[in-house]
């Protein structure tokens, strides 16, 4: 059976196709990029609405498939930006009703873990999920993906982007530029905030911006923000590994693209020791394939949803989902 998955929780619109053996048949995306500032939810939703029809037919055509070949429709039901979620949910419902197919409402964070597991071969990892909207340390315990630690304020990707934007560094997302500038920097002391297994990044950004205004070089600040925030994340990841006694670490989300973060986690895993996997870039970013694959899994566990009851869940927590498809 082939599942069509639609992702649209934030600025990325993704369409993916997966079959029930876990094979990814297609993974196409289009991104909304704000002209200035951060993501505007309404503009992002309009982008998704305008681009989805074309992206759908393109994706099917390129895979030599038609709507008749589909057996299931899946969509990212949450968490995410309300207007974006509602736009793609409407499309998914229309498709399911029109094609007379079942509908699966996928939790975006869990989809990230599941696509990570199937593309890297991890069985039961502690997952570090860091993106523009999320920073969570997750592990499967007692039927659910439980949150062992998370940010108490802004997400790591958001922190890097915000610093870049406020410090006048050009480009979106700013995190990538921060990584480049960091290469020539020296260490400046910045607040290191770990509360048990929870993290906080907003004070770090504020302090770095203050130093920027007082004349500290951008290179030094970019370097130090990365060193401090990634060390915090690595410390909590190690703490979660120790607490759960799991032997695998999985890194996913948009910030997984950062080489320094990957190196740090890899070093920690080597010293522990523990197996370390990074989700391939295409599947670490927000994407439709992960929605399609988790849709297949949910279908297998009988967890599809009636279109009439498929309201979106902008604040849906990872640990609210009973992951029946996972063999503990």
């Amino acid at each position, binding site marked *: 059976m082939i599942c069509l998955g639609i992702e649209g929780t934030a600025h990325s619109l993704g369409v993916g196709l997966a079959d029930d053996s876990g094979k990814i048949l297609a993974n196409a995306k289009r991104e909304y990029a704000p002209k200035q500032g951060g993501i505007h939810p309404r503009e992002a939703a309009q982008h998704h609405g305008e681009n989805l029809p074309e992206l759908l037919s393109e994706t099917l055509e390129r895979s030599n498939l038609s709507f008749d070949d589909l057996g299931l429709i899946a969509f990212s039901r*949450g*968490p995410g930006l309300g207007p974006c979620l509602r736009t793609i949910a409407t499309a998914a419902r229309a498709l399911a009703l029109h094609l007379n197919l079942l509908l699966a409402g996928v939790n975006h964070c869990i989809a990230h873990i599941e696509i990570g597991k199937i593309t890297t071969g991890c069985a039961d990892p502690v997952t570090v999920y860091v993106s523009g*909207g*999320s920073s*969570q340390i997750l592990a499967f*315990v*007692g039927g659910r993906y*439980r*949150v*062992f630690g*998370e*940010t*108490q*304020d802004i*997400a790591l990707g958001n922190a890097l982007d915000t610093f870049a934007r406020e410090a006048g560094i050009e480009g979106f997302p700013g995190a990538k530029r921060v990584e480049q500038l960091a290469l020539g920097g020296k*260490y400046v*002391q910045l607040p*290191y905030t*770990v*509360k*048990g*297994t*929870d993290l906080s990044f907003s004070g770090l950004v504020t302090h770095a911006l203050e130093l920027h205004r007082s004349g500290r070089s951008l290179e030094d600040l970019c370097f130090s923000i990365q*060193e*401090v925030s990634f*060390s915090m994340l*690595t*410390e909590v990841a*190690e*703490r979660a*590994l*120790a*607490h759960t006694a799991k032997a695998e670490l999985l890194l996913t989300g948009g910030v997984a693209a950062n080489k320094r973060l990957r*190196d*740090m*986690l890899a*070093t*920690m895993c*080597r*010293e*522990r020791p523990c197996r370390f996997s990074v989700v391939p870039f295409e599947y670490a970013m927000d994407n439709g394939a992960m929605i399609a694959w988790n849709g297949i899994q949910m279908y297998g566990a009988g967890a599809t949803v009636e279109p009439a009851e498929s309201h979106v*869940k*902008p*604040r*849906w*927590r*990872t640990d*609210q989902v009973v992951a029946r498809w996972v063999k503990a």
Partner: protein
Amino acid sequence: MGEGMTLITKGAEGDIYSAKFSDVFFQSPQFSEVIIKRRIPKGYRIPELDLQLRRQRTIWEAKIIHDSRAAGANVPIILGVWTDTCTLVMERIEGIRLKELLNQQGEKDGAEACRKAGRQIALLHRHGIVHGDPTTSNMILRGEDVHLIDFGLAEYSDSVEKRAVDLHLMKTAIKSTHYHRFRPYYAAAVEGYCAEMGEGAQAVLERSKLIEKRGRYVER
């Protein structure tokens, strides 16, 4: 130091060894076994940040454990501090960790241990200390008493926010590892906390509910 040390665990923070008191210091009728906590360099951190964190945390931990003991809390006795190697030597608390106890024992004993743990946390709070990492891995039942260990993230603070984070972390730890009896266990911990804390407890409890909502993606 070095001979006769047995590695017990590689914690997230540092290596924990057990050793004979006499191997570390001199013959003593009071102590036989001691715990050595050595914060080893983490290769993933740059050396400046690494040394800064390890040294700061070693000194901090010794001072806070000592002050907690002076406040009447059940904590290990600090026997030595080495800042060059970031090493602490302390009394060994022989007993069962709450992490194991809560999974092995009946609900009544488990709840009783949680109540005592809540009391210990409140005792610290009343004396201006927050633990910072009150998971069930850091609580040991010895005889009738619950002891707190690992003050690596502890700090001096009277802030309601930081106290509430302690409570929230204890809740998260119980929920994530002992989910089957989460409600009675957490209720007992709160009961113990309130009994020791007195009237200050209410504000902390309310704030901890706020913190929980502040975690991203909580349905309101």
